[in-house]
Every structure is written in structure tokens, then in C-alpha cells.
């Protein structure tokens, strides 16, 4: 197939793929946001992020099947539980490696992801478990059918992303975070407990991944490896947006979801690769990423 000819494609197909792209983009944005916040503050590339996203989905599923807690309860509880797990990881392990090279953080979190995913796979197998949509039905928009829950996910992700941006860029706590990212020693000498701030940041970043996992549960199958492939794309998103940039993560996440959806319509075989092609091009032109600042 040659170049994409938009007029040969049915509107229905185009819009449903773009919606799918937007939903994928919503997850890219939420996950890369957490990664960006964690990297900015801890200087650790959190490779456990995909596993923590999976843990969010599993927590929601277990809450429903074992404790009969409905989706809306899990949407609040699961991120708290997984966030607390993140806090334990940070206190016990991550805090010991901040003074070392990035590589050690990468290895530690990568190993942790392997262990966590292995344990879940061992206990619950590889085949996914279904999770019923909490908002059944949908709307016929004339040019396409919009499942209600998917519409909700896009709006919820936007709200979550903008709320996180606001918290970091416009609040007192956010100012502490930004300042501590630049010069933790001085911020601490002002009387702020920076180690506690770092722990909290990791807990929040992990909680954000788990929140994305809960939102994903009714769309995808809940399975041990659901975060593995996703996290690779999310790392590409973070690199394209610019390491540590909050707005960069949000815009790039949604934008690349759409690019991917559009590629699925125009040239389906390229849809898995297109994000990495974009990454290579961006790195050639702007090595610090679209929104990144060179130090």
C-alpha cells in the first residue's frame, strides 16, 4: 500500500482507530507522567512501572472477586495499596542506590519487575482474567459508536494528567518537588525533609501507575504481563517528550496514541513501530526531547 489516502478510508474505521489511539494515548500519558515525576525527583528510571500498573489492575480484580469491592471503590483503594507497596520498595531498596550511577537503579527496578511479574504469573497464570465494564453501553455519534466506558477513560485520564500537572506546577508541595529536583541539599537545608518528599513522590508515581492499571482492567484482560509491552512504548514516550518534563509527557502520550491509531488506518504493519521511528527522529533533531531542557 502506498501513501495513506484518507478518502479511501471509511469514516467509521478512521474514527474508531483514532478513539483507540486516544485511549492508548491516555494510558501512555498517565504512565509516562509517573515515570517523569519519579525520574525528576529520584533520578531513577523506574523499570518496575509496568509491573506496578499490572498490580493496580490485579488489585482491582482481586478486590472485586475476593472482597466484592466494586470498580469505583477499587479506583480509590487499589492505587493507595500499590502506592504503599512502592513506598516500602523505596524505603528498603531504592534509597540505598541514589548516590550510584543510573544503571544501578535501572538494574534494580528491572529485576524487581521480573520478580513481581514472575510471581503473579506463577500464581495466576498467563491467560488474562476478564473484568466487567463498570459503565456498560455507549453512544451512537452518527459517524461511529462510542463505548461509554472508553469515553470515561479518556476524560478521566485527562483530568488525572491535568490535576498532576497543576499539583506540580502550581502548588506549594509542587514547588518543593521542583526545587528538590534541582538542588536537594539546599532544599533540605531550608528545613524540608527531602528524604520523606522523595518517598512520597515515589509512592505517588507508583499510585499513578496503579490508577492507570485499574482504569485499564475493564478494557484489557487482567494478566501478569499486561504492563511488559506497554512500558517499552511508555519509555519511548518519555524520551520523545523529554526526560522529566510533565507537560511533555502528557502531550506526547496523547499525541503518540493518536499517531499510532492513524498509522493503524493508513499502514497497519507500521503501527507497532511508528512510535520508535518517531523517537529516533526526535532524538536526531532534539536530543533532549520535544519538551526537555538540556542541562
Amino acid at each position, binding site marked *: 500500500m502506498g501513501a495513506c489516502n484518507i478518502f479511501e478510508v471509511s469514516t467509521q474505521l478512521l474514527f474508531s482507530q483514532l478513539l483507540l489511539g486516544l485511549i492508548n494515548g491516555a494510558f501512555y500519558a498517565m504512565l509516562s507522567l509517573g515515570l517523569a515525576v519519579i525520574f525528576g525527583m529520584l533520578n531513577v528510571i523506574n523499570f518496575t512501572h509496568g509491573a506496578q500498573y499490572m498490580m493496580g489492575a490485579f488489585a482491582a480484580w482481586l478486590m472485586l472477586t475476593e472482597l466484592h469491592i466494586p470498580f469505583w471503590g477499587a479506583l480509590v483503594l487499589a492505587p493507595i495499596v500499590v502506592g504503599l507497596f512502592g513506598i516500602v520498595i523505596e524505603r528498603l531498596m531504592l534509597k540505598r542506590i541514589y548516590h550510584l550511577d543510573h544503571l544501578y537503579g535501572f538494574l534494580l527496578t528491572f529485576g524487581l519487575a521480573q520478580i513481581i511479574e514472575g510471581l503473579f504469573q506463577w500464581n495466576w497464570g498467563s491467560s488474562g482474567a476478564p473484568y466487567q465494564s463498570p459503565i456498560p453501553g455507549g453512544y451512537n455519534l452518527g459517524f461511529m459508536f462510542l463505548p461509554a466506558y472508553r469515553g470515561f477513560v479518556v476524560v478521566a485520564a485527562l483530568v488525572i494528567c491535568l490535576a498532576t500537572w497543576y499539583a506540580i506546577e502550581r502548588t*506549594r508541595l509542587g*514547588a*518543593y518537588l*521542583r*526545587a528538590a*529536583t*534541582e*538542588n536537594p*541539599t*539546599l*532544599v*533540605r*537545608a*531550608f*528545613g*524540608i*525533609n*527531602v528524604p520523606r518528599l522523595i518517598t512520597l513522590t515515589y509512592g505517588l508515581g507508583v499510585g499513578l501507575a496503579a490508577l492507570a492499571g485499574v482504569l485499564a482492567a475493564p478494557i484489557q484482560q487482567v494478566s501478569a504481563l499486561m504492563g511488559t509491552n506497554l512500558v517499552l512504548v511508555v519509555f519511548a514516550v518519555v524520551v520523545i517528550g523529554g526526560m522529566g518534563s510533565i507537560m511533555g509527557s502528557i502531550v506526547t502520550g496523547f499525541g503518540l496514541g493518536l499517531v499510532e491509531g492513524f498509522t493503524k488506518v493508513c499502514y497497519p504493519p507500521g503501527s507497532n513501530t511508528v512510535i520508535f521511528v518517531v523517537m529516533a527522529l526526535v532524538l536526531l533533531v532534539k536530543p533532549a526531547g520535544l519538551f526537555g531542557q538540556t542541562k
Partner: protein
Amino acid sequence: MAETLLKVDGLQAWYGESHILHGVGFEIGRGELVTLLGRNGAGKTTTLKAVMGIVERRTGSVKLGGRETIRDASNAIARQGIAYCPEERGIFSSLNVEENMLLPPQVKAGGMSLDEIYQLFPNLKERRRSQGTKLSGGEQQMLAIGRILRTGADMLLLDEPTEGLAPVIVQRIGEVIRTLKSRGFTILLVEQNFRFAATVADRHYVMEDGRVVDMIAAGDVQANVGKLQAYLGV
């Protein structure tokens, strides 16, 4: 001397393997303005950092208001009413002027209000929405001093506040430091610029090779000019 606010005794400090301070001792009374003088590398900045608890390792004794702080983390030390203005100023580029100003939390009651600080530094008010690092060197220095006045800390550690600034700005900083002293702040000032230091300080401690080697009161400076010049290599 008034009641002792800061008493440092046998203070030693290290960066990695480098042993920088070899038993520094001095004391400052409440409301006093004292300088640490000495050549480059004598350990003046490290002394401030060691008092603040931001060196890798320190031993000895640093008593603030009679309370030992040698085992405290720097955030806990700051909470006891001591504030630090670093040599490199430490203005945060991701924060605007007002955010920089509001960053250090209040550690005690009785700090200056934002309006009072802007009265002291009118330039900063005009530029309060600018990115902190877009200010001129002098303005950044004013911001670095201004932001620690809000916190209620009554002991200020100022590291070379006049470094690299134009004479007219140095004069302005001098006026501000005298104003702060008249408002009751206790100030430990590190200075290379002795002519500046001599105009503001009550006493001078001279440092050499990580130790305090001499103390000269402001009234005795004239009689000791030769000795001071030898110490400072000027």
C-alpha cells in the same frame, strides 16, 4: 558579649577522603555580626556548610542556643532557627522569583513579611513573576538573602554575599546587612572582601588550613592591619 547563640568547638569535616576542617572553634553572641576571613581554601565555606549539616561527615560540637546539633540532619538544624545563604546563591530556575521567595518554610514565629522583604529589595517586587535565574547577579543575591528572612530564623549564615557584584550593589548589600543587624538578626558572614567586612562586622575570626587561628575585634582592626594583610595575602 551577649548570650551565646552559636558555639562551635573542635569541628572537623570531610568530603569523601578529604579532611577539610581540623577542629574549628568560635562563638557568636545573640545579635552579633561576625565574619570568617581567610584565603581561598582556608575552610570558610565548609565551616558554614558543616554548621548547617550539609557536609558528608562532621564531628565535634555545634551548639545552637545551648542545644547540641552535631548529630541532627540539616532539615532538623534549619528548624531550630538557622538559615543559610549559599555562595552560589542557589536560586531555583524552575521557580519564579516569588516562588523562590516563598520556598523556605517558616521555622519560627516572627519572620519578616513578604511586603517588608520587598521594601528592603524593591527590584524583586517588580520582577516577582520572572524566572529566578533570569535576574541579574545582584538581584539573585538579594533574592537569596530575602527568602531566608521570611522563615523566622534569627541566625543567618551568609556565604560571600558580595562576590562578583558591582561596587554600587556591594554598597546596597552592606546597607541591607546593617539593617538586618539592627533588627536583631545574628549573622555569621564569610567574606573575601575585607574592606567590605570591616564596615559591617563586630568581630573577625581568621581561618587558615581548616582552623580558626585568630580573632580580631572591630575596634582593633586598625592596629592589626599588617597582621590581617599577612593572613589574607593582600
